[in-house]
């Protein structure tokens, strides 16, 4: 009986976000806003990993992520893998990467920036460095560090 008890059971359809940096899982759940959607969500924290030492894993049943959600994950945990599961099999597997431009995902921290003061404006952050994560506002050029990211 004990052998058959899995920590988390495989899911039939949905998304598995694997290889998250240990400690980032809770933050990612927060920005994905999955609590109220009715989907079953599992979060594993500090799972032993041969590559990473420790990692976090998130499983969301019956939901596939949007591009904007994948970009958010990339900003918090670059290198994480997003696996789309269909009928218990991995249908798609993507290593998330921060794109050269992230639009409408996080705001510029400069309160006087046009992107924070114009109705209908879309924030645009341009990738300056992947390690550490540095972006710059496409409008006012303000540099944005990982700690300063405020998601929209």
């Amino acid at each position: 009986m004990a052998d058959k008890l899995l920590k988390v059971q495989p899911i039939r359809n949905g998304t598995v976000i694997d290889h998250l940096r240990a400690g980032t899982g809770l933050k990612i759940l927060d920005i994905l806003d999955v609590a109220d959607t009715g989907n079953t969500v599992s979060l594993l924290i500090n799972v032993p990993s041969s590559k990473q030492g420790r990692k976090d894993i998130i499983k969301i049943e019956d939901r596939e992520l949007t591009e904007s959600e994948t970009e958010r994950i990339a900003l918090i945990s670059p290198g994480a893998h997003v696996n789309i599961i269909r009928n218990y099999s991995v249908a798609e597997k993507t290593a998330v990467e921060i794109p050269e431009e992230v639009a409408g995902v996080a705001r510029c921290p400069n309160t006087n920036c046009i992107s924070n003061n114009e109705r209908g404006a879309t924030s645009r952050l341009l990738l300056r460095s992947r390690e550490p994560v540095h972006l710059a506002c496409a409008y006012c050029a303000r540099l944005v560090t990982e700690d300063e990211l405020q998601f929209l």
Partner: protein
Amino acid sequence: MPRPLAKGMSKDLITMDDLSDDDIVGLLDDAARLVPVAHGDVHLPLLEGKLLGNMFFEPSTRTRMSFETAMKRLGGNVINLGALASSSVSKGETLYDTMRMVDGYCDLAVLRHPRQGAAQYAADACTIPIVNAGDGAGHHPTQTLLDLFTIREELGKLEGLTVGLLGDLRYGRTVHSLAAALARYDATMHFIAPKSLAMPRRVTAELPDGWSAHTTLDEILPELDLLYVTRIQKERFPDPEDYARVAGAYTISAETLRDAKPVLRILHPLPRVNEIATDVDDTGHAAYFRQAFNGVPVRMALLEMLLGSD
């Protein structure tokens, strides 16, 4: 579709970083050739039939008037946004919508706006060239160009000068851009300001070695080829007495300049309040009124570069 440009420059001028060293030299050379046209001594209608949109969402005297003068001296015409209270901006129109409208009316727009990044935002919305004439605490590249032009006209060169920047170095976008531009020409720079208004670290971090900070002018005045003075604004000081003390300590008079080199030139972006006494106007050091005039040929050269046909 963005229209093709005469000299390979990007279609907009948002920051000085949009200009290569060659672009800057080309603009300053063109400006020098256009001085007689700026004075009205030579008629040269290079931009006849072209229309400039002056979009000033904040007050401006020199910048707005010199763009208008430059355009008209080159045979072009100008339309103005006018007073904000009477425009559709007061009805809540977005900058995006206003600029899309102007995009259809004009061949080029000059924008001043209180928000940082507004010029790039407008440039993204428009197909016509956008010239940034000040975006909040951001950039004002044509001021930097006319400062460089004035320095070259007054001192005969840009390279290797010893320059003092004095006044409000913390909030003044003019001095931030100028320091970055002078660094291209191996200037030795002295930043003279009260501690509370010192040059910000984010600006000095981008400069090569060759700058130093001071709280008084006396010790370095005799070394200077150029002194760039800016206004210390009263609203930066919560206590009016602090303001009076600081502003008084950074006032330049003919007496202050006794130990200066004869070639020293004083620049100021204007308007001045009392940081340069009027008795300096009659000395050989005063170059600020010529500097204000230079806004016209420099902006003519830029307009010609962005709108000219060859």
